[in-house]
């Protein structure tokens, strides 16, 4: 295990150890590798000592998040503003309190094998930018491009910052575990919209997680909602009409058909939250 003090050191450590090394953030995924019958990586590069990696800075323009910010830290630090509601809720509802105190946002979005990440759809809906460093230097990627590059990008690389831009928008995050809480959700919908002065939806961004193996935006639904009123029932109907866009993932926790059946319901619930916030704002 190495303890780099800087991103450069970390990249050097990873490069030196080659494919045997893995970067470790909160360690909640890697510590369970024996349960997945995986061989434990011989070298852990612990990122916890890197300056600024735990930082969360909130301004009126953006939220800047260090990759080692924990779910719990984010849930506490984020303001309750409607534009950040999706992110705050994703931080506050994932897993369970003990895990939220150690699991990190960077670890969460870098783990490509984890289909039920709460942050991935939330960041998709918030149009986050991901700062990635590798030996070639620094690169800013839209979150979708980042998520898609995770398996193919040449090692070593690190996420070094996440930027969530802030504008006057409304957002929500809905997830459906089998119990009240505590298990991984079988479907997740994150929504962020702008509302024009006629009360119509503009520039909707919808992130969907857990339904398929990888999270993604639901562009057809986003387009269908453009210019529509903020109406939960209408949104659910529109989602049902377009549900063929998804092929639900069959897994032990839920069959694929169930995920696609409930996804429109989650969108309705998300829009119920958004409508409430919109009405509050209007009044």
């Amino acid at each position, binding site marked *: *295990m190495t303890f780099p003090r800087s991103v450069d050191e970390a990249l050097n450590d990873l490069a030196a150890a080659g494919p045997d090394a893995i970067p*470790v953030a*909160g*360690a*909640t995924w*890697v*510590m*369970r590798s024996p*349960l997945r019958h995986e061989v*434990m990586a011989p070298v*852990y590069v*612990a990122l*916890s000592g890197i300056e600024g990696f735990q930082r969360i800075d909130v301004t009126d323009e953006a939220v800047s998040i260090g990759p080692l910010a924990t779910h719990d830290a984010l849930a506490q630090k984020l303001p309750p503003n409607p534009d950040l509601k999706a992110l705050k809720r994703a931080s506050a509802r994932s*897993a*369970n*309190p*003990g*895990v939220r*105190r*150690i699991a990190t946002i960077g670890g969460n979005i870098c783990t490509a094998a984890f289909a039920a990440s709460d942050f991935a759809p939330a960041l998709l809906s918030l149009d986050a930018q991901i700062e990635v460093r590798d030996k070639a230097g620094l690169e800013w990627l839209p979150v979708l491009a980042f998520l898609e590059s995770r398996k193919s990008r040449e090692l070593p690389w690190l996420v070094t910052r996440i930027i969530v831009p802030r504008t006057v928008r409304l957002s929500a995050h809905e997830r459906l575990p089998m119990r*009240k*809480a*505590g298990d991984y959700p079988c479907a997740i919908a994150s929504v962020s919209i702008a509302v024009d002065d006629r009360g119509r939806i503009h520039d909707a961004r919808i992130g969907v997680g857990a339904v398929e193996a990888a999270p993604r935006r639901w562009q057809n639904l986003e387009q269908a909602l453009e210019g529509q009123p903020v109406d939960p029932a209408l949104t659910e109907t529109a989602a049902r009409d377009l549900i063929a866009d998804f092929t639900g993932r069959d897994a032990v926790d839920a069959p694929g058909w169930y995920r696609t059946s409930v996804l429109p319901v989650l969108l309705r619930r998300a829009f119920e939250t958004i409508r409430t916030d919109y009405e509050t704002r209007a009044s």
Partner: protein
Amino acid sequence: MTIELTINGEVRTVTADPRTALLDVLRDSCRLTGAKAVCREGFCGACTVLVDGEAVPSCLRPIGMLDGRSIVTIEGLAHFETPNPVQQAFIDHDVVQCGMCFPGMVMTLTAFLETNPAPSRGEVKAALSGNICRCTGYERIVDAVLSIQDMRKVSGR
């Protein structure tokens, strides 16, 4: 790798593979067996300890990342003859059954009450969503927590 950390107020030097879970170091090397290895994946909470005051599952904490940190286990929370208010409430309400989950329950709830000394029933239950009990059906645990009057004794640990 050699790691120096404080366990229950005592500075300890541990020599271990840094990937080893804190839980295994506590149980196997320190023979502090109050933290229980039940699910080993962060769902059950039976191995919960305080790391720098935060209640976390020790099965998911590699010992290599804990150099210089302070750990409090159930053995270090209170002397057994002077239980803390959470433990005392559990005794008074006759809540315990098999007992395997309770060290973790006590750790989680002690830390929780320090930051939230007057919780609602729903908040106590939400705080327990990572602590599973297979015997009791929880409600008496929540009753006991809500009966604690003097939270200062909890934080005065």
